């Protein structure tokens, strides 16, 4: 990747983060888990996922399923930057007159499947990947999960079955931001050694820095072992880009005031650190 390409990706990611921060005003959003997967999503949509802009339902397209649906602000922010979603619509957040709410849904063009209940889309993605195999087509099927989401047994069932069917066209990306809601994953139901677990389930595993485009490029371009599901564990920071909320257990679902959002935008651009007083919500 050239420096120029990398710089362009970084500026796209910065704009996606601005969209996310704005969505945390009013009714709020899952800001931390959205900020952690920005580079993953921007890289996937700009460099990995082949998608026909004229026909979003082209059966030859690659599929990206967002299983950790609560990071939908990152998805819609990326859609805006890709030119697939009008930026004005983000201001309809939580209006019953539009379909921009706390989880993704197919009313928004580009969303492959609705999510919100954790541990569903690995299986749906495996079904799509199986059909691609059956038809001999070369589509790539990628599914992004959270790390807390790996608590759900359905994720592991899917890996067993997908490997039984040799679905090497399926890639599972884990946004490993080390938190689930208001708790560190390792303090609740420890996941490590995570790579070993995926290997034991028959997967080909890579572990990378999920904020580093060169490592993302290497992971997605890498050679693949035949017949094995690919797993990319992307180590990330929850709240990435905003030091005042980074890696904090209490910054899960946040509804900030207009003034706080303005401060956070300043902080994002490396100016003054924000001082946040809004109470965090434990709900959702």
């Amino acid at each position, binding site marked *: 990747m050239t420096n120029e390409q990398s710089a362009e990706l970084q500026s796209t990611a910065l704009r996606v983060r601005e969209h996310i921060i704005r969505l945390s005003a*009013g*009714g709020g959003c899952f800001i931390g888990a959205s900020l952690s997967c920005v580079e993953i999503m921007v890289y996937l949509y700009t460099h990995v996922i082949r998608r026909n802009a004229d026909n979003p339902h082209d059966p030859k397209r690659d599929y990206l399923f967002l299983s950790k*649906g609560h990071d939908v602000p990152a998805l819609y922010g990326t859609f805006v930057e890709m030119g697939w979603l009008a930026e004005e619509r983000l201001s309809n957040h*939580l*209006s*019953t007159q539009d*379909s921009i*709410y*706390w*989880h993704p*849904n197919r009313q928004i063009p580009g969303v492959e499947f*609705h*999510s*919100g*209940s*954790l*541990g569903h889309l690995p299986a749906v993605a495996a079904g799509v990947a199986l059909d691609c195999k059956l038809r001999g087509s070369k589509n790539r099927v990628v599914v992004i999960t959270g790390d*807390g*989401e790996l*608590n*759900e*047994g359905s994720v592991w069932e899917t890996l067993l079955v997908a490997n039984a069917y040799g679905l090497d066209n399926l890639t599972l990306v884990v946004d490993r931001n080390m938190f*689930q*809601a*208001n*708790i560190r994953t390792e303090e*609740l*139901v420890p996941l490590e050694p995570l790579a070993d677990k995926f290997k034991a389930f028959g997967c080909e595993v890579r572990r990378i820095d999920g904020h580093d485009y060169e490592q993302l490029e290497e992971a997605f371009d890498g050679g693949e072992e035949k017949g094995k599901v690919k797993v990319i564990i992307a180590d990330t920071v929850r709240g990435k880009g905003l030091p005042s909320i980074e890696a904090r257990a209490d910054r899960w679902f946040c509804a900030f005031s207009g003034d706080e959002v303005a401060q956070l935008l300043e902080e994002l651009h490396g100016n003054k650190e924000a001082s946040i007083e809004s109470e965090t*919500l*434990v*709900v*959702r």
Partner: protein
Amino acid sequence: MTYEELLTETALKDERIIVMTAENRALVRNLPRILGARFVDTGITEQTMVGMAAGLALRGRIPIVHALAPFLTMRAFEFIRTDVGIAGLPVKLSGYIPGFLSDGNGPTHQAIEDIAIMRGIPGMEVYSPADEDDSVKMLPSIWAAPAPAYVRINHKKGTFVHAPYEPGKAEVVAEGKDLTLLVYGFLFDNALQARTLLEKEGLSVGLVNMRSLKPVDQEAIVRAARGSRLLVTIEDHLQTGGLYSIVAEVLLRHRLAVAEVLPLALDEHWFRPGLLGQVLETEGFTPVAIASRIKRHLEFDLNSHIYVQ
């Protein structure tokens, strides 16, 4: 008193109680500190949590388990039916943000079929308190009973001071000659306000807070059907399998099938997600919307001479 204060008090008094959650601590923030090992967070594993609750109950414990209502009742459904239901174990299920309370989350998070599926399990009791005051009045006897129970948790503060709870009985707030509103859960407060609006129009309007959906207070339903020209069921639930169905079953059983019932429910659709106030507007469940839907129904029926006096 809040839900959490009641739970704390109850658990401290009774060593058999184990408080569990599938990583949703909204209702039980302070309990890890207070209960220590009797607080169990299994992570995002609703099925495993319910299975473990059955195991704990087998050893004489009373698990009170927490998760978002849709994931608790649907993700873990077969574990509830098979491990808790078949064995008839005293596992107490607390479903958070049921019905409209999931506001902007979307259909994945909407528990609007929970009453229907939970009441289908033999021996399972189903409750829906109107607000925090009602919850605190109802929960002690629900938790003390030997049966498995599902409760739609509602910790909103209401304006109404509820009567003491009598197990399995509804709270008859008022009787009315023209119509009776039958409601449960969070919509109670809006039904109460709708009643005031309708009474201002000169109608005699009854109001019943159902409280217990299974066992249901058949007598309260029958009395309302005999005393009013129209029953209105109000619920943030699909029309199938909820209060409208329950009322229909009771009326048939008592050979009152000619009674007229207007269902205000979600008819074959998930509700439009948004902030709660807007959801109520869009779906027609604000006090004004409830009152005007009822008035429209009454006018339509009078004009089309459906009433046989």
